């Protein structure tokens, strides 16, 4: 297989895809579901229910809080217990809606049948209608970044979309949710891709998959050839060489269409690409074709010491603790529980944190895997420079950030950092490079915002 990849840097973490061949199971309903109002990039959603209100599965419980925002829907039926705060994946207490679960009653207008709806059978679906339905269903990027999907489909007038790239890379170790989704819902994903292409008014689509998932590459290649034969759409499944962070938007665009997105504030559509996660494509299918808002998702629950790691279709709002129990409970010893994978996941301060729109995995690292090693002096080996997929110099950015030399660190392009962690992963001296760089980046971004506000 002649696999492509991105052109700068990258690392190769151990895969640890323990749950590749574990078929997805439907997770049990929680007793109580917790819905953080901030499950996406942008303004938090605004609650539209009150304590004591009855809700059904699919009832909107919070509306979009601004243009860059997304509504939130209940994944359960029951009574609103309270609107309060709870610890979320960031470790801070944030506003949430808590619902006591009673039965499992769905909104009537959601199509719960398994029938595959095709775009050609629905002439009413104009591009505007598609984008509108996606927006109203609260669909956001499901790969973890959670950027509202409808905004990506309506690029700024300065940019012109030419293709949709489906991100099915899943380059994070451990996580297999996207892989299971592809193996189990390939037809729906392809319809979702067609909807995305139609919504963005483009006729080219790519699906980027790493070569460690040969079955998914084969399946989707075959199905895509059938589904799009004779249509106006050209869809290509692109096998990609295994390399982290290929699932990063910019790296994926480079790998698939050989174009590099310029430094921020440029976004992929500036080079013609709209990148959507494979989970998002599925969510788009369900939202547009089944009138089903985004309230459940595929999530991997995994860890080397976990008794029965698995893949789940989970109602959002389910506390991670419930899923960990199903998988055999917390392993003995000291654990680090991650929302996401080991490269970019967030370590949780509590396992009561619920599954949200962007939670592709609950990864449990145990013992030595959970701990960092002691940092040693930098030996200036330049391995971080070689690993940085953005062509930056991590050792320098970390040092300058540590010295609080904001002016120089801005000149060294710190805002281009995508926080993938390749530098720290590769550092033989175990230096906390990304800790320092994050601090520098957020300070510099604050300085830039203040400067722009003055103008």
């Amino acid at each position: 297989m002649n696999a492509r990849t991105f052109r700068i840097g990258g690392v190769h973490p151990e895969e640890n895809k323990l749950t590749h061949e574990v078929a997805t199971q439907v997770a049990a309903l929680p007793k109580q579901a917790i819905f953080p109002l901030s499950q996406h990039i942008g303004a938090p959603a605004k609650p539209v229910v009150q304590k004591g209100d009855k809700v059904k599965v699919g009832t909107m419980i919070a509306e979009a809080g601004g243009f860059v925002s997304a509504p939130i829907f209940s994944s359960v039926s029951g009574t609103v217990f309270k609107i309060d705060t709870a610890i979320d994946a960031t470790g801070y207490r944030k506003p949430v809606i808590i619902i006591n679960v009673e039965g499992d009653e769905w909104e009537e207008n959601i199509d719960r049948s398994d029938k595959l709806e095709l775009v050609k059978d629905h002439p009413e679906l104009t591009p505007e209608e598609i984008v509108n339905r996606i927006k109203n269903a609260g669909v956001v990027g499901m790969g973890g970044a959670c950027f509202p999907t409808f905004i990506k489909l309506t690029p700024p007038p300065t940019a012109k979309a030419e293709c949709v790239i489906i991100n099915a890379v899943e380059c994070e170790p451990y996580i297999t949710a996207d892989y299971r989704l592809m193996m189990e819902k390939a037809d729906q994903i392809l319809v979702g891709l067609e909807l995305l292409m139609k919504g963005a008014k483009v006729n080219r689509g790519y699906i980027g998959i790493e070569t460690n998932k040969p079955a998914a590459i084969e399946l989707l290649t075959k199905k895509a050839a059938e589904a799009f034969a004779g249509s106006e759409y050209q869809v290509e499944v692109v096998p990609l060489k295994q390399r982290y962070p290929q699932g990063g938007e910019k790296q994926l665009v480079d790998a698939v269409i050989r174009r590099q997105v310029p430094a921020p504030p440029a976004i992929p559509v500036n080079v013609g690409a709209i990148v959507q996660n494979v989970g998002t494509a599925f969510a788009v299918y369900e939202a547009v074709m089944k009138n089903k808002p985004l309230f459940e998702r595929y999530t991997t629950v995994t860890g080397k010491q976990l008794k029965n790691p698995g893949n789940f279709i989970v109602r959002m709002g389910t506390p991670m603790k419930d899923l960990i129990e199903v998988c055999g409970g917390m392993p003995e010893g000291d654990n680090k529980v991650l929302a996401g994978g080991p490269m970019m996941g967030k370590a949780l301060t509590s396992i009561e944190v619920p599954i949200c729109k962007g939670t592709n995995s609950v990864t449990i690292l145990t013992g030595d895997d959970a701990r960092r090693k002691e940092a040693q002096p930098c030996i200036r080996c330049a391995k971080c420079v070689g690993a940085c997929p953005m062509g930056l110099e991590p050792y320098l950015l970390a040092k300058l950030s540590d010295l609080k030399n904001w002016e120089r660190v801005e000149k060294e392009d710190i805002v281009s950092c995508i926080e993938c962690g390749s530098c720290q992963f590769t550092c033989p001296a175990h230096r906390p490079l990304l800790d320092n760089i994050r601090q520098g980046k957020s300070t510099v971004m604050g300085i830039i915002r203040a400067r722009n506000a003055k103008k």
Partner: protein
Amino acid sequence: MSKLIVSLSPHAHGNDTVERNMYGVIIALLPALLVSFYFFGLGSVIVCATSVIACVFFEWAINKYVLRNERNSILDGSAALTGLLLGFNLPSNLPIWIILIGALFAIGVAKMTFGGLGNNIFNPALVGRAALLVAFPAQMTTWPKVGQLGSYLDAETGATPLAIMKEAIKSGDASVLDQLPDAFTLFIGNHPDGAGAMGEICALALILGGCYMLWKKIITWHIPVSIIGTVFVIAALMHLANPIYADPFAVIFSGGLMLGAIFMATDYVTSPMTPKGQIIYGVAIGFLTIVIRNWGAYPEGMSFAILIMNAFTPLINTYVKPKRFGEVPAKQ
């Protein structure tokens, strides 16, 4: 319930360590070390052992009694590596007391004064060698002939290939070069009349070590290839222009070129951080080596060329940046 560990991402690590890299270089030096034992015998064993033990001892003592560091850095392998490289640069008949002075310079002056591993500007082993060369020019420029396995201080010395090359240039007589062994003999290092520093005698062993380091991703190709390539190209042009200059194969296989290009110039701490910078650094070292070898006071210019470019490394790091993502023009 047991506690939860919280830290920022990434939570995975590639398991590379400082020790793995340092000991990796030492492993890569083993073929050359064995060859030097084979060619120079007892003297080689004494010089190398003294140098390694002295470097580790000085690092330990300075850590403990001068800097009073709680954590002693001797186990990271860098002091032993400096000792081995210093030994490789010395003649195998050098008295122990001179080696001790060299080790003290290398570790004490060049490394620990600047703050230890990672902070030194100049390659410690080369500083040690340069200090000895200035302080003891006679002892440091007489090189034992190979094959005197049982001898140490009493070893018979001979003219190195580089001295012969220099003689040819000085006299302007190309026939002087006829004394040189052929390039293949230089490559293997097995020339009974030949002489030189013990670690640099066999280009083959050093190249093997270099391949090992490339395979283990301890170094990248940029520095060695740019140095050797530059020297080869300039030497070839000069040889074509005037036969008093030795042929390029003899030039790259003699003296400290391979040792310097593969093991000394690639020292992490003192070489540039970007591939582009490393190539600039390598080309400059190659150029300076030729200049010093052909027109300088010493027959060998490798170590001075590296030391000079060590001084330029911070400047190169400041001005030579890697290609940032997004600067590549879009391909249609």
